[in-house]
């Protein structure tokens, strides 16, 4: 550790009518602030020649010497003739090089933001990304058909593993959330309907809303947060670590090994998860109906069999594969887009979740329009 040999300072004397500044003390990073203050002891406004004597510096390092040097440069710029004593010539040359390179204007510091250009860049990027996504989706479809034609090339092992990780392990939490939301809907519904003495219609309310919308939508949002992010982060980290490049040079297409099994797994498992969410949702709705209204389980089940139309069930479960496909494609797309930095993994993971939830809800709205038009 640097021994502390006293504060840096500058003493002024006069020799031959010209001021001489004697630099003393230790000019090191420990005294950075003091060095800066001490260097200001040489006044900038003066005429003629001055001498700066550095022979008596006890100790110095790069930081300290720079803080002295930058004052000398300032003086020179102000028109003072400076004579240096005891300053090593090779250091001086080097420091002057540094000073010269600092004077070149930093490009991105000075650059002003130009609105039209930014706007143009924004649209160009958005357009390019849309084209990228379409390419990616198209490529995924091609691979899916290819896998159907050549089933032996399909990575079954990765597929099974993904089925387990993304669906089987997600089942408890998906079921629980659907159960709880159904309880909330049933409770709110029964409170309102009681006022009309129509609390038996709580069963209709819960059954239709859970089967058509709630179960599948909640499942999709849960899976987007759980698996969409995991896909982006897993594939992103592999890209960062050049593992995907290693796959390519090993002759394995990362799209087939990493992307396709994930897409297939989610597309196939989502309807099963939605079905499971339907069941726990109906159970939750039933529990609350039995507890808060004058119905019992037998009455609930007989009412359920009157209300329940298979159409509602199929509409709900039928949307699930589309949602699963969207989540998997978006997650994998963002994972493959990770480029060079750890930061981009985080960014793409965030984008994967946000985009997939947005697209799932958009798709749900489109499905609603479609089913209304078809009178289903």
């Amino acid at each position, binding site marked *: 550790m640097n021994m502390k040999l006293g504060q840096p300072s500058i003493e002024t004397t006069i020799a031959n009518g010209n001021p001489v500044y004697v630099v003393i003390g230790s000019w090191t990073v420990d005294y950075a602030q003091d060095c800066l203050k001490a260097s200001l002891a040489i006044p900038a406004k003066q005429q003629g020649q001055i001498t700066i004597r550095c022979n008596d510096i006890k100790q110095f390092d790069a930081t300290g010497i720079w803080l002295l040097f930058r004052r000398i440069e300032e003086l020179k710029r102000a028109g003072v003739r400076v004579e240096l004593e005891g300053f090593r010539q090779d250091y001086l040359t080097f420091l002057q*090089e540094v000073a010269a390179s600092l004077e070149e204007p930093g490009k991105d510091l000075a650059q002003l933001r130009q609105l039209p250009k930014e706007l143009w860049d924004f649209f160009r990027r958005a357009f390019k990304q849309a084209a990228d996504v379409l390419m990616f989706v198209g490529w995924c479809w091609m691979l899916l058909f290819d896998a159907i034609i050549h089933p032996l090339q399909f990575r079954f092992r990765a597929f099974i593993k993904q089925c387990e990780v993304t669906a089987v392990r997600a089942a408890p939490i998906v079921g629980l959330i659907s159960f709880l939301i159904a309880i909330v809907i049933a409770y709110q519904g029964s409170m309102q309907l009681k006022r009309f003495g129509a609390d038996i219609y709580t069963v209709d309310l819960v059954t239709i809303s859970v089967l058509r919308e709630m179960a599948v939508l909640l499942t999709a949002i849960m899976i987007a947060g759980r698996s969409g992010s995991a896909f982006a982060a897993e594939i992103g980290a592999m890209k960062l670590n050049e593992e995907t490049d290693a796959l390519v040079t090993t002759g394995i297409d990362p799209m087939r090994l990493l992307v396709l099994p994930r897409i297939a797994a989610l597309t196939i498992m989502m309807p099963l998860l939605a079905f499971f969410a339907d069941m726990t949702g109906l159970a939750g709705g039933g529990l609350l109906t039995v507890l808060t209204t004058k119905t019992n389980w037998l009455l609930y089940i007989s009412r359920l069999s009157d209300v329940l139309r298979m159409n509602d069930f199929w509409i709900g479960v039928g949307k699930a594969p589309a949602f699963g496909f969207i989540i998997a494609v978006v997650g994998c797309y963002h994972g493959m887009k990770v480029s060079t930095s*750890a930061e981009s993994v985080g960014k793409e993971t965030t984008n994967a979740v946000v985009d997939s939830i947005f697209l799932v809800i958009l798709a749900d709205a489109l499905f609603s329009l479609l089913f209304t038009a078809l009178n289903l």
Partner: protein
Amino acid sequence: MTEPVVSVRNLVNRFGDQVVHDWLDLDIYPGEIFAIVGGSGSGKSVLLRSILGLHKPDDGSISVFGKEIGKLCETETHELYRHVGVLYQQGALFSSLSVIENIETPLYEYLPLSDAIIRELAMLKLKMVNLPDNAANKFPSELSGGMVKRAGLARALALDPTLLFLDEPTSGLDPLASDAFDKLIDVLHVQLNLTVVMVTHDLDTLFNICSRVGVIIDHKMIQGTVDEVTKNPHPWIKEYFGGPRAKRARNSRKEK
């Protein structure tokens, strides 16, 4: 005899059943370029991490600048790291910051100076490691392997440390870049009055610039000047320093 800068006593490190260090001693004196060598898995990196306080050893004591690591309070640790520079094997540059911002990070942490002066000091360090000016605003991902090492070295030197740790400084560099990097370290070592501790596999580095060597063998350390260690009769050392690569490296040193 001067006080050692780094002093390790009775260091013991185990991972489960696997013994890495068993009563290992080590002394590094001011102004040395000390190389730590050993076979893979012999615990070079663990030793380095133990000295830096990144790994808590199972037993033994480690002193840096006479202060025992692991028994320091937070402010003392902060103060200690101020005088220590580390170049990690992969550079460990912060990937979300540009090169110049990477070098500025330690400066901002420790120095109460204005933005402009900190930028100047960072540029000074950039120049010291011979990086071109246009590297300043590049991001780590845009740099070549050699430039990453130089940028990492610039960041390690940002606060003018007196003790510099290098983890395999020339690994992953081509021979020309390795030679240039060796020369850079040699020059900086003299100019900045540094004590350098490095983990290395590069025999050229070892013979060209290192003043002393410590070899980790059988969980212990054999240390001495390069010539002393070369004469040690241990079979691993014989193989390591007597192999064809070592002979070539030593001959090239004699030519210089």
